[in-house]
């Protein structure tokens, strides 16, 4: 494989990381944030494998008939990537389930709205309204679907 191809892959991996992180920072939608995270992880994995690549080498599998002394690529980064991929999917599942629950409770996927609702809930729990404190937390009570005015009110309260 040529120098050019390696550089292309390097740029690809780094761009994937950059796109992922950029998307993660800029997205307000919870679902999109999860997607962006998995993009960035894919980029990081690619980077790791790229680091272990060795030119003119074969995959680290000893095939019958081949000499044991053949040059092979570095197996350790590959093992690390295997681990990292599985870790990534576990975290992704967890994040998705949290997003689902948060969506069910707050009726939105917008991070900013959710954050302000969360702040309100925390202050509520901190004693502003005894009724919504410890014994009846916001997650337990059926929330009405948020209508536009309510949202505006929330935004106003936040600002």
């Amino acid at each position, binding site marked *: *494989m*040529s120098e*050019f*191809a390696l550089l*292309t*892959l390097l*740029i*690809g991996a780094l*761009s*994937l990381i950059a*796109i*992922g992180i*950029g*998307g993660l920072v800029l*997205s307000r*939608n919870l*679902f*999109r944030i*999860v*997607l*962006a995270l*998995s*993009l960035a992880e*894919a980029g990081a*994995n*690619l980077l790791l*494998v*790229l680091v272990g*690549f060795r030119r003119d*080498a*074969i*995959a*680290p*599998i000893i095939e019958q008939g081949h000499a044991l002394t053949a040059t*092979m*690529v570095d197996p350790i980064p*590959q093992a690390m*990537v*295997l681990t990292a*991929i*599985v870790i*990534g*999917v576990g975290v*992704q*599942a967890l994040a*998705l*389930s949290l997003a*689902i629950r948060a*969506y*069910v409770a*707050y*009726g*939105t*996927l*917008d991070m900013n*709205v959710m954050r302000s609702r969360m702040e309100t809930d925390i202050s509520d729990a901190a004693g502003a309204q005894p009724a919504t404190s410890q014994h009846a937390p916001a997650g337990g009570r059926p929330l009405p*679907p*948020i209508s*536009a005015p309510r*949202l505006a009110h929330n935004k106003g309260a936040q600002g």
Partner: protein
Amino acid sequence: MAWADLIILIMVVLVLAGAGAALFLENLLGAAVATALVSLGVSVFFVILRAPDVALTEAAVGAGLSGLLLALAAKRLGLWRIEVQQDSEDAGDSSC
């Protein structure tokens, strides 16, 4: 420039385009599919980089399983219906 290099270049561009699509597609389900495709593309890179184990895993886990997870979650989030999704984008209205 060798053919192999050109193919790799094109694939990289495609994967990056897929990543862009995952971020900019209005339809979140489509975005999830784009993410899975990016994973698939990356797994091809793994094959090129002599990492068949990783490629297999990335294809199975990154593209397949995680795509499935995303799709299921998107269903729970009501993203399969596009009009609802648009509502939730700008007003957070829920019809769940």
